[in-house]
């Protein structure tokens, strides 16, 4: 039967396929809800807040979005892989604390601390992943455990070592200014100041999108989230894929943590609690399914942008910031409803 087989060079187009307009294609994308939401939020604040459209304000919005987005992007990948990481928020603080305290106590150069922090944070990610695949409970419970342990360790070790709840200043140490250039500098374009975290954010979006859509690992991420048993049955390394995803979150936490440290010089050890939910919400608004197997890195980044616009927009509109939470809740509900609809369409089986 191989002799009559058409050459694989035959183009995969078909006359029964109506030419889909770019608009229709876009309607099928996971980012749809978030982009529509982002445009709506943007227009809303552009109307109600006079100062919102100023270049300086937009740079501030982007900065706020990037600090969330650096974490939301890897968290989104993890969610596409079907898992959660509740320890993501405090892991940022942990990473910053390790850099600061290791540098202060052990060496003269902050870069050593930064390197140690990278290894330690990645190790936390590996711990989460290994615990998950070695044992049975859902990732929700495992990372809740990690979350609590890290929260306690952050406070406990900081008090033990520096006597207060914050770290000592390291700004006079060797390497501080170069590290600040990398993690917390400001780039001036025209007369507008952009934070370097925006660059980190864009880079993470690009890398995550590349991995997700064009590499084998990306195929495996979709597969372990969308059908773990099926993935295992065709030989996908499920365990390694999940550990890799947790390490991705850890890497994001390391970047965020170094930004915290070199932006403010001292680290408050109680910070970060609750942020994990913000990352998850940004990913969900960006079109990631809670149940896994569907979503995009760009969507999560747009979700983070919505966060940035809302939190700063409320300030520019001179409203009570309490309304921020209300907006967030409304966005989350809308996004979830839209996701449910998308999934129903995509899974219209039988």
């Amino acid at each position, binding site marked *: 039967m*191989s002799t009559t087989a*058409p050459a694989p060079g035959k183009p995969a187009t078909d006359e029964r396929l109506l030419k889909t307009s770019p608009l229709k294609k876009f309607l099928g994308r996971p980012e749809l809800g978030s982009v529509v939401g982002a445009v709506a939020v943007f227009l809303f604040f552009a109307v109600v807040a006079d100062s919102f459209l100023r270049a300086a304000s937009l740079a501030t919005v982007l900065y706020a979005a990037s600090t969330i987005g650096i974490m939301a992007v890897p968290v989104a990948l993890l969610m596409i892989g079907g898992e959660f990481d509740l320890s993501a928020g405090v892991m940022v603080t942990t990473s910053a604390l390790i850099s600061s305290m290791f540098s202060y106590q052990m060496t003269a150069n902050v870069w050593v601390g930064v390197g140690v922090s990278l290894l330690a944070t990645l190790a936390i990610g590996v711990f989460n992943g290994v615990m998950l695949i070695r044992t049975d409970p859902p990732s929700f419970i495992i990372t809740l455990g990690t979350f609590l342990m890290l929260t306690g360790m952050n406070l406990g070790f900081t008090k033990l070592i520096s006597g207060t709840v914050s770290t000592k200043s390291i700004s006079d140490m060797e390497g501080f200014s170069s590290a600040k250039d990398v993690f917390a500098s400001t780039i001036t374009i025209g007369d507008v100041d952009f934070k370097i975290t925006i660059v980190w954010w864009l880079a993470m979006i690009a890398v995550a999108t590349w991995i997700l859509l064009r590499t084998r690992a990306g195929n495996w991420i979709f597969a372990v989230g969308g059908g773990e*048993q099926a993935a295992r049955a065709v030989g996908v390394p499920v365990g390694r894929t999940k550990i890799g995803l947790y390490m991705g979150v850890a890497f994001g936490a390391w970047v965020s943590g170094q930004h915290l440290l070199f932006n403010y010089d001292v680290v408050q050890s109680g910070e970060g609690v609750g942020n994990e939910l913000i990352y998850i919400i940004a990913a969900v608004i960006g079109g990631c399914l809670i149940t896994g197997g569907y979503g995009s890195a760009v969507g999560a980044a747009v979700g983070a942008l919505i966060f940035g616009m809302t939190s700063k927009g409320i300030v520019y509109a001179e409203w009570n910031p309490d309304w921020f939470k209300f907006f967030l809740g409304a966005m989350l509900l809308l996004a979830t409803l839209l996701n449910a609809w998308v999934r129903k369409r995509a899974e219209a089986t039988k």
Partner: protein
Amino acid sequence: MTTEAADTTEAPAPGDRTPLVELDAVSKYYGNIRALEGVSLEVHAGEISCVLGDNGAGKSTLIKIIAGLHQHDAGTFRIEGEDTRLSSPREALDRGIATVYQDLAVVPLMPVWRNFFLGSEPTKGVGPLKRMDVDVMRRTTHAELLRMGIDLRDVDQPIGTLSGGERQCVAIARAVYFGAKVLVLDEPTAALGVKQSGVVLKYVAAARDAGLGVVLITHNPHHAYLVGNRFVLLKRGTMSGSHARDEITLDELTRQMAGGSELDDLRHELERAPEPDLKEHGDAP
């Protein structure tokens, strides 16, 4: 690459050839539960061996042993004449045994072409630029499905939007493409209508004609008899019968499958059962 499967068609004359897969008195215990005992099965190239049995007869356990998910506790398991103990599904795949599960065959939300190559994606480029060869993946998926007789409109549609029969066929086409020598099908027609079952059975036959050895697990003797060369009947974990096609009729197969004398008892019992009071309910719409 497309000729891989066809290479196995030159099967030697029957009689003097080694079976692709051979189970000899294989047993499996889960703790003190006897899941499978003394089951023997031969799978030859270009033939379909059917495993028939009711729920709980041990069909799933048998599949899991052949697919490398579980190891047998007694008896021998030979692949091409060589004693084997598979440690993982990956190893089974590498030895040419592909298993298509009823529900687990595919990831519903992923496009057809991603599913087709899942776990064995072709790549190009090196280092950080190493990437999936998406064009080849799309084109090959379309061509391979066409070869099996499935003319897909759009390989980008989520595989969940295909019908159950089509999904089974994609899974079979995938196994054939990746050079499987033995195809294990777990109840491929269980959830399908008559017409769709026919379509799937056609592809099973196509895989057989391509020179693969097929293990068809089913509880439908009619489907089995349409395509099967040998029939193994399982009952409560043991082998209750093993027949070549020319030794048995469909009626006899159905009777044995349904439990033979048990069926007679059941008929007897149903005849004696008090007639339901139809009059009282007769008025209901």
